[in-house]
Protein backbone atom coordinates (compact mmCIF):
# COMPACT_ATOMS: atom_id res chain seq x y z
CA UNK A 1 0.00 0.00 0.00
CA UNK A 2 1.52 3.33 -1.08
CA UNK A 3 1.37 5.83 1.79
CA UNK A 4 1.46 9.01 -0.32
CA UNK A 5 0.48 8.59 -3.93
CA UNK A 6 0.31 11.24 -6.60
CA UNK A 7 -0.84 11.20 -10.20
CA UNK A 8 0.18 11.51 -12.89
CA UNK A 9 3.80 10.42 -12.63
CA UNK A 10 4.76 12.29 -15.80
CA UNK A 11 3.06 15.26 -17.41
CA UNK A 12 4.18 16.78 -20.71
CA UNK A 13 2.20 19.73 -21.94
CA UNK A 14 2.45 22.92 -23.96
CA UNK A 15 2.79 26.47 -22.71
CA UNK A 16 -0.50 28.11 -21.93
CA UNK A 17 -2.33 24.91 -21.01
CA UNK A 18 -4.03 24.21 -17.66
CA UNK A 19 -3.22 21.01 -15.80
CA UNK A 20 -3.91 19.33 -12.44
CA UNK A 21 -1.92 17.01 -10.19
CA UNK A 22 -3.65 14.88 -7.57
CA UNK A 23 -2.35 13.55 -4.24
CA UNK A 24 -3.76 11.13 -1.70
CA UNK A 25 -2.36 9.90 1.63
CA UNK A 26 -3.53 6.94 3.68
CA UNK A 27 -1.42 7.68 6.76
CA UNK A 28 -4.13 9.56 8.65
CA UNK A 29 -1.98 12.70 8.75
CA UNK A 30 -3.58 16.09 9.30
CA UNK A 31 -1.18 18.13 7.18
CA UNK A 32 -0.37 17.88 3.49
CA UNK A 33 2.12 19.83 1.38
CA UNK A 34 3.19 20.64 -2.13
CA UNK A 35 6.92 21.03 -2.77
CA UNK A 36 8.64 21.99 -6.00
CA UNK A 37 12.06 20.48 -6.80
CA UNK A 38 14.13 22.20 -9.46
CA UNK A 39 16.82 20.69 -11.65
CA UNK A 40 19.43 21.27 -8.93
CA UNK A 41 17.40 19.14 -6.49
CA UNK A 42 16.43 22.10 -4.30
CA UNK A 43 13.11 21.36 -2.54
CA UNK A 44 11.00 24.47 -1.99
CA UNK A 45 7.70 24.49 -0.14
CA UNK A 46 4.74 25.90 -2.05
CA UNK A 47 1.64 25.21 0.04
CA UNK A 48 0.55 23.44 3.19
CA UNK A 49 -2.95 22.42 4.27
CA UNK A 50 -3.93 21.34 7.77
CA UNK A 51 -7.24 19.54 7.94
CA UNK A 52 -8.44 21.17 4.69
CA UNK A 53 -7.32 24.65 5.79
CA UNK A 54 -4.53 26.51 3.95
CA UNK A 55 -1.79 27.34 6.47
CA UNK A 56 1.29 27.98 4.34
CA UNK A 57 1.18 29.86 1.07
CA UNK A 58 4.68 30.75 -0.05
CA UNK A 59 5.45 33.27 -2.77
CA UNK A 60 3.94 31.29 -5.60
CA UNK A 61 2.30 32.79 -8.72
CA UNK A 62 -1.48 32.81 -8.39
CA UNK A 63 -1.61 30.57 -11.48
CA UNK A 64 -1.05 27.80 -8.92
CA UNK A 65 -4.13 26.93 -6.90
CA UNK A 66 -4.22 24.13 -4.35
CA UNK A 67 -7.44 22.46 -3.20
CA UNK A 68 -8.02 20.05 -0.36
CA UNK A 69 -11.44 18.36 -0.55
CA UNK A 70 -10.66 16.39 2.64
CA UNK A 71 -7.63 15.84 4.83
CA UNK A 72 -6.51 12.80 2.85
CA UNK A 73 -6.42 14.60 -0.51
CA UNK A 74 -4.58 17.63 -1.85
CA UNK A 75 -4.68 18.65 -5.48
CA UNK A 76 -2.72 21.29 -7.39
CA UNK A 77 -4.14 23.08 -10.39
CA UNK A 78 -1.87 25.14 -12.61
CA UNK A 79 -3.25 27.66 -15.11
CA UNK A 80 -1.47 29.09 -18.15
CA UNK A 81 1.60 26.90 -17.81
CA UNK A 82 5.00 28.50 -18.49
CA UNK A 83 8.37 27.01 -19.40
CA UNK A 84 9.69 27.86 -15.92
CA UNK A 85 7.05 25.65 -14.33
CA UNK A 86 8.95 22.59 -15.54
CA UNK A 87 10.09 20.75 -12.41
CA UNK A 88 9.23 17.79 -10.22
CA UNK A 89 6.31 18.46 -7.88
CA UNK A 90 6.20 16.45 -4.66
CA UNK A 91 3.24 15.92 -2.40
CA UNK A 92 3.99 15.15 1.25
CA UNK A 93 2.07 14.55 4.44
CA UNK A 94 2.93 14.77 8.13
CA UNK A 95 1.87 15.47 11.68
CA UNK A 96 3.10 18.34 13.87
CA UNK A 97 6.62 17.69 15.09
CA UNK A 98 7.10 14.68 12.85
CA UNK A 99 9.03 14.27 9.61
CA UNK A 100 7.29 14.34 6.27
CA UNK A 101 6.40 11.39 4.08
CA UNK A 102 6.77 12.10 0.39
CA UNK A 103 5.14 10.76 -2.74
CA UNK A 104 7.28 9.82 -5.73
CA UNK A 105 6.72 13.08 -7.55
CA UNK A 106 5.11 14.33 -10.74
CA UNK A 107 7.63 15.27 -13.41
CA UNK A 108 6.14 18.22 -15.29
CA UNK A 109 7.64 19.26 -18.61
CA UNK A 110 6.30 22.35 -20.33
CA UNK A 111 7.26 22.73 -23.99
Amino acid at each position, binding site marked *: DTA*VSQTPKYLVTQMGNDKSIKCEQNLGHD*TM*YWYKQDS*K*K*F*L*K*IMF*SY*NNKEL*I*INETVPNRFSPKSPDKAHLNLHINSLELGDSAVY*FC*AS*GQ*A*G*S*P*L*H*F*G*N*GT*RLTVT
Partner: protein
Amino acid sequence: QKEVEQDPGPLSVPEGAIVSLNCTYSNSAFQYFMWYRQYSRKGPELLMYTYSSGNKEDGRFTAQVDKSSKYISLFIRDSQPSDSATYLCAMIINSGASKIIFGSGTRLSIRP
Protein backbone atom coordinates in the same frame (compact mmCIF):
# COMPACT_ATOMS: atom_id res chain seq x y z
CA GLN B 1 22.32 33.83 2.80
CA LYS B 2 20.22 30.66 2.64
CA GLU B 3 18.81 29.39 5.92
CA VAL B 4 20.35 25.96 5.32
CA GLU B 5 23.58 25.43 3.38
CA GLN B 6 24.64 22.07 1.98
CA ASP B 7 27.50 21.26 -0.41
CA PRO B 8 25.86 19.91 -3.58
CA GLY B 9 28.79 17.63 -4.45
CA PRO B 10 28.96 15.37 -6.32
CA LEU B 11 30.87 13.26 -3.83
CA SER B 12 32.39 10.00 -5.07
CA VAL B 13 33.97 7.48 -2.70
CA PRO B 14 35.03 3.79 -2.98
CA GLU B 15 32.85 1.06 -1.52
CA GLY B 16 33.53 0.47 2.16
CA ALA B 17 34.63 4.05 2.87
CA ILE B 18 33.17 6.20 5.62
CA VAL B 19 31.10 9.05 4.18
CA SER B 20 30.57 12.37 5.92
CA LEU B 21 27.76 14.68 4.77
CA ASN B 22 27.23 18.07 6.36
CA CYS B 23 24.87 21.02 6.62
CA THR B 24 25.17 24.37 8.31
CA TYR B 25 22.29 26.61 9.25
CA SER B 26 21.87 30.20 10.29
CA ASN B 27 18.68 30.22 12.40
CA SER B 28 19.37 29.13 15.98
CA ALA B 29 15.62 28.50 16.44
CA PHE B 30 15.86 25.25 14.48
CA GLN B 31 15.32 22.39 16.92
CA TYR B 32 14.46 19.28 14.90
CA PHE B 33 16.84 17.89 12.32
CA MET B 34 16.37 15.26 9.64
CA TRP B 35 18.25 13.51 6.89
CA TYR B 36 16.44 12.29 3.81
CA ARG B 37 17.75 10.02 1.05
CA GLN B 38 16.46 10.48 -2.48
CA TYR B 39 17.06 7.96 -5.24
CA SER B 40 16.75 9.04 -8.85
CA ARG B 41 13.11 9.55 -9.92
CA LYS B 42 11.83 8.83 -6.41
CA GLY B 43 10.58 10.91 -3.52
CA PRO B 44 12.79 11.71 -0.50
CA GLU B 45 12.63 9.04 2.21
CA LEU B 46 13.42 9.70 5.85
CA LEU B 47 16.70 8.28 7.15
CA MET B 48 17.26 9.96 10.51
CA TYR B 49 15.31 12.30 12.80
CA THR B 50 16.95 13.98 15.80
CA TYR B 51 16.09 16.66 18.31
CA SER B 52 18.94 17.37 20.67
CA SER B 53 22.62 17.95 20.21
CA GLY B 54 24.70 14.79 20.15
CA ASN B 55 24.76 11.57 18.16
CA LYS B 56 22.05 9.19 17.05
CA GLU B 57 22.93 5.86 15.50
CA ASP B 58 20.85 3.56 13.29
CA GLY B 59 22.73 0.68 11.72
CA ARG B 60 25.45 2.04 9.44
CA PHE B 61 24.10 5.61 9.78
CA THR B 62 24.98 8.14 12.49
CA ALA B 63 23.43 11.60 12.70
CA GLN B 64 25.28 14.25 14.64
CA VAL B 65 23.93 17.63 15.75
CA ASP B 66 26.03 20.49 17.13
CA LYS B 67 23.63 23.30 17.96
CA SER B 68 26.36 25.58 19.30
CA SER B 69 28.09 25.53 15.91
CA LYS B 70 24.81 25.26 13.93
CA TYR B 71 26.20 22.22 12.17
CA ILE B 72 24.74 18.80 11.46
CA SER B 73 26.36 15.73 9.94
CA LEU B 74 25.41 12.33 8.62
CA PHE B 75 28.03 9.58 8.68
CA ILE B 76 27.67 6.40 6.63
CA ARG B 77 29.93 3.50 7.64
CA ASP B 78 30.90 0.66 5.30
CA SER B 79 29.33 2.49 2.37
CA GLN B 80 27.63 0.36 -0.32
CA PRO B 81 26.83 1.08 -3.98
CA SER B 82 23.16 1.04 -2.92
CA ASP B 83 23.88 4.15 -0.81
CA SER B 84 24.41 6.13 -4.03
CA ALA B 85 21.70 8.80 -3.92
CA THR B 86 21.11 12.45 -3.11
CA TYR B 87 21.08 13.20 0.62
CA LEU B 88 19.05 16.16 1.87
CA CYS B 89 19.25 17.66 5.32
CA ALA B 90 16.10 19.29 6.69
CA MET B 91 15.09 21.14 9.83
CA ILE B 92 12.05 22.48 11.69
CA ILE B 93 11.87 25.39 14.09
CA ASN B 94 9.61 23.75 16.68
CA SER B 95 7.39 20.72 17.03
CA GLY B 96 4.24 22.61 16.12
CA ALA B 97 5.67 24.21 13.00
CA SER B 98 4.51 22.92 9.65
CA LYS B 99 7.31 24.44 7.61
CA ILE B 100 10.33 22.22 7.05
CA ILE B 101 13.38 23.83 5.42
CA PHE B 102 15.56 21.65 3.22
CA GLY B 103 19.19 21.91 2.22
CA SER B 104 19.92 21.71 -1.50
CA GLY B 105 21.11 18.09 -1.28
CA THR B 106 24.47 16.35 -1.77
CA ARG B 107 24.78 13.87 -4.61
CA LEU B 108 26.73 10.80 -3.40
CA SER B 109 28.19 8.05 -5.56
CA ILE B 110 29.75 4.87 -4.12
CA ARG B 111 32.17 3.21 -6.54
CA PRO B 112 32.22 -0.64 -6.43
